[in-house]
């Protein structure tokens, strides 16, 4: 068996002391980066690129960078759960039920299940990567502009109906998100939109700044109000570990999330975010208690967290087999490999089997290291909710300011952060949720860009979205979901006047 010989060879590369050390360093830095608000995996890998260039062996360099990437996916759930601060787009969904759980004193259970789910998903994703990389890569390529558009509108619909409190309010927030996303350079026409002559706005708003403002700062401003009113935030920690009941509720969510993440995550550009949305929606549909979602349902944490970790494994497939980087962090790894004289792509497995298999083997090891590293931390993190608000809030504000400044080194982004924070506060007061806005901001460019590309391809005919099988299936799914939502909405309205 070529496969096993290759993997065995990979482990012999990955288990050398130096590579083990760098896999550990990568996992450690990744966890830290995931926990620190603002500093995303792509920014960290960019900072460490010169270090990676200085490392003699390309295998060691990529092991370090890959470790940072999947380590940060792992750590990203921590701030989402504890402080309502999503570090990257894929963990926005985790905030919804994760933060609610933390407020109910169940932070430990949420963090624990996120870590376990991440480990299972990461490892299963790797097994998928080992066994089926080439056919999965072909699947990823079959997503052209029309398919991406159809997938993205399904994602948008799921984002709107995410929490299910009010569809109209969700639509309003989605519209705001799409508007914010259209600030800056329009990739199709090359024109700058809504920049009002401000140079900093030419590149548009930054995701990290928007998410930290709308979620994190908005939450703190809201929290200030309850302090003034004399209410005290919960100081209960509760059980630090997930209980047997938690586990029973989440085990299938973890497996479903893994599968969804693996397949949807492989699609370049936006795959990971959509996979976490799809997983959340699926869990809510399947659950016997859909009303618990949004109120601290553990399956709502387990599913999406597993999905985004499986996606981080499968996003290596287009890089390793086609030489196509699917997201910003992977693009960085791609660049580092090129500088080291290794060309990722279809010939990698023959030309440099040590790199191909060494990296895959190191990811198995790194995942194991991450769970060992993270599980003991769960207890420590869970205590964080006991830190008085008066201490925690300024620390969070400081971190978010540093974080948004560090993205592009612009003070302007800090002003934006504060602005989004105030907006997030007002929205929350009025019962509008930040989730649909932030997710629409991420999906907006994908929806708009792929729609206009498709229409250029078809000469202006919308038929292109239903002529192609994958796109047709997705458009069909969209129609079914939208009609279903509409029916539910109308039924609710009808029932209301009659009910006592």
């Amino acid at each position, binding site marked *: 068996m070529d496969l096993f010989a290759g993997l065995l060879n990979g482990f012999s590369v990955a288990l050398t002391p130096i590579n083990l050390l760098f896999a550990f360093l990568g996992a450690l830095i990744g966890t830290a980066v995931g926990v620190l608000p603002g500093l995303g995996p792509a920014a960290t*890998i*960019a900072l460490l*690129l*010169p270090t990676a*260039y200085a490392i003699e062996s390309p295998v060691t360099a990529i092991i370090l960078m890959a470790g940072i990437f999947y380590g940060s996916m792992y750590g990203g759930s921590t701030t989402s759960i504890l402080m309502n601060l999503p570090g990257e787009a894929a963990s926005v969904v985790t905030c919804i039920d994760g933060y609610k759980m933390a407020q109910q004193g169940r932070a430990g259970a949420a963090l624990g299940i996120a870590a376990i789910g991440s480990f299972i998903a990461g490892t299963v994703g790797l097994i998928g990567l080992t066994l089926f990389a080439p056919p999965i890569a072909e699947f990823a*390529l*079959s*997503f*052209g*502009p*029309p398919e991406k558009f159809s997938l993205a509108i399904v994602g948008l619909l799921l984002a709107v109906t995410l929490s299910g409190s009010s569809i109209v309010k969700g639509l309003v927030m989605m519209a705001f998100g799409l508007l914010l996303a259209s600030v800056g*350079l329009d*990739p*199709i*026409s*090359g*024109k*700058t939109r809504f920049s009002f002559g401000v*140079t*900093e706005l*030419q*590149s548009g708003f930054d995701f990290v700044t928007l998410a930290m403002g709308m979620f994190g700062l908005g939450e703190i401003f809201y929290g200030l109000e309850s302090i003034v009113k004399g209410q005290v935030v919960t100081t209960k920690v509760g059980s630090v570990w997930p209980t047997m009941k938690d586990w029973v509720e989440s085990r299938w969510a973890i497996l479903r999330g893994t599968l969804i993440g693996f397949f949807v995550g492989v699609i*370049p*550009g936006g795959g990971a975010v959509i996979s976490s949305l799809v997983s959340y929606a699926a869990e809510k549909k399947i659950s016997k208690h859909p009303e618990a979602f949004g109120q601290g349902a553990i399956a709502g944490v387990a599913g999406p967290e597993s999905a985004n970790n499986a996606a981080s494994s499968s996003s290596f497939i*287009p890089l390793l087999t*086609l*030489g*196509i*980087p699917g997201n*910003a962090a992977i*693009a*960085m790894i*791609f*660049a580092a490999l*090129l*500088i080291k*004289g290794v*060309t990722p*792509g*279809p*010939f990698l497995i023959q030309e440099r089997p040590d790199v191909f298999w060494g990296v895959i083997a190191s990811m198995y090891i790194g995942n194991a290291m991450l769970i060992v590293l993270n599980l003991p931390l769960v207890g420590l993190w869970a205590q964080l909710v006991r830190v008085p608000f008066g201490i925690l809030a300024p620390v969070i504000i400081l971190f978010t300011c540093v974080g948004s400044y560090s993205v*592009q*080194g612009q003070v302007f982004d800090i002003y934006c952060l504060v602005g989004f924070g105030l907006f997030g506060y007002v929205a929350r007061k009025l019962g509008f949720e930040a989730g649909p806005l932030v997710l629409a901001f991420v999906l907006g*460019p994908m929806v708009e*860009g792929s729609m206009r*590309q498709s229409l*250029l*391809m078809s*000469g202006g005919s919308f038929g292109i979205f239903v002529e192609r099988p994958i796109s047709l299936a997705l458009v069909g799914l969209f129609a079914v979901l939208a009609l279903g939502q509409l029916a539910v909405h109308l039924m609710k309205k009808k029932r209301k006047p009659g009910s006592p």
Partner: protein
Amino acid sequence: MKRIVASLATLFAALALPAAALAADPYPSKPVSAVVPFAAGGSSDLLARALEKSWTKYAKQPLVVVNKPGGGGVVGTEGVVRSKPDGYTLYVGYGSGHDVVMPTLQKMPYDPVKDLVPIARVSVHSIVIVTGAKSPFNSIQDVVAFSKKEGKPVTTAVSVKAGSVDLALTAFGKAAGVNIVTVPFAGGAESTTALAGGHLMIGGGHPSEVIPHIKAGRFKALAVALPQRDPSMPDVPTLKELGIDVALWGSIKGVAAPAGTPKEVVKEIEGIVKKICEDAEFKATMANLSQPVMYQGSEDFTKFIAQATADYAALIKQLNIKLD
């Protein structure tokens, strides 16, 4: 008391020393920032990283790459233009689309020709017209024949709107009488991925973007849109050879400094870059990046940039391209 005086004296001496050293030491006496106005991992960044790696062989102080992305390159470049012209802030990637193409299309916050001093050209990336391996097209003539026979538009993947690749393919369409519909993406990685999936008929790209796919048998190269063939793919004919009168300057990558940088400092940096361009290790790295080394000194590079800017302006006018 004596000890205090002595230590104070030493302190002053220590403080005075770096200042004196600064005045006396030849350039560079401290690390040099190489500003790349694009994100890490792009072709300009890779070139800067390759320079960074070989720089210390020929200069006493290191070159430090700083990525300042945003506004299609304008934000970072403006930062260089506004920085102190002392040779310690350089712009790597000079000659990109926003330097030679954009000024014709939109108002810029600075003048890319007058506000920067070209120091050296490092590389020129040609523009290659390609098609998917499963495509019925095997040559440019096939594309022209298809268009003449079927009368249908030819969908074409290009990296960005109004970039050099977009201009080259639009110019090709006009010269050969082919109805080219360019579909712009958010960068070369996205456009080549869409073409590799067979979603468009033809596409264009720089060698670094298309060569890996050509080697993998996913793309067929049809033509090069530059005056001469690309050394990294000597079998591929130019459009001119095929009887289509289109030749562009490609994407230029050089080093520049803010206007007002002292002549001797420019000379010094030019010398360092020249030595790097002759370095075997640097050449090998650049070959692996599919970025051929095509060095030009400050004087020639200045003329080259002026020529390229003028030619692109004329082409844009001729093709009637506007941003809207």
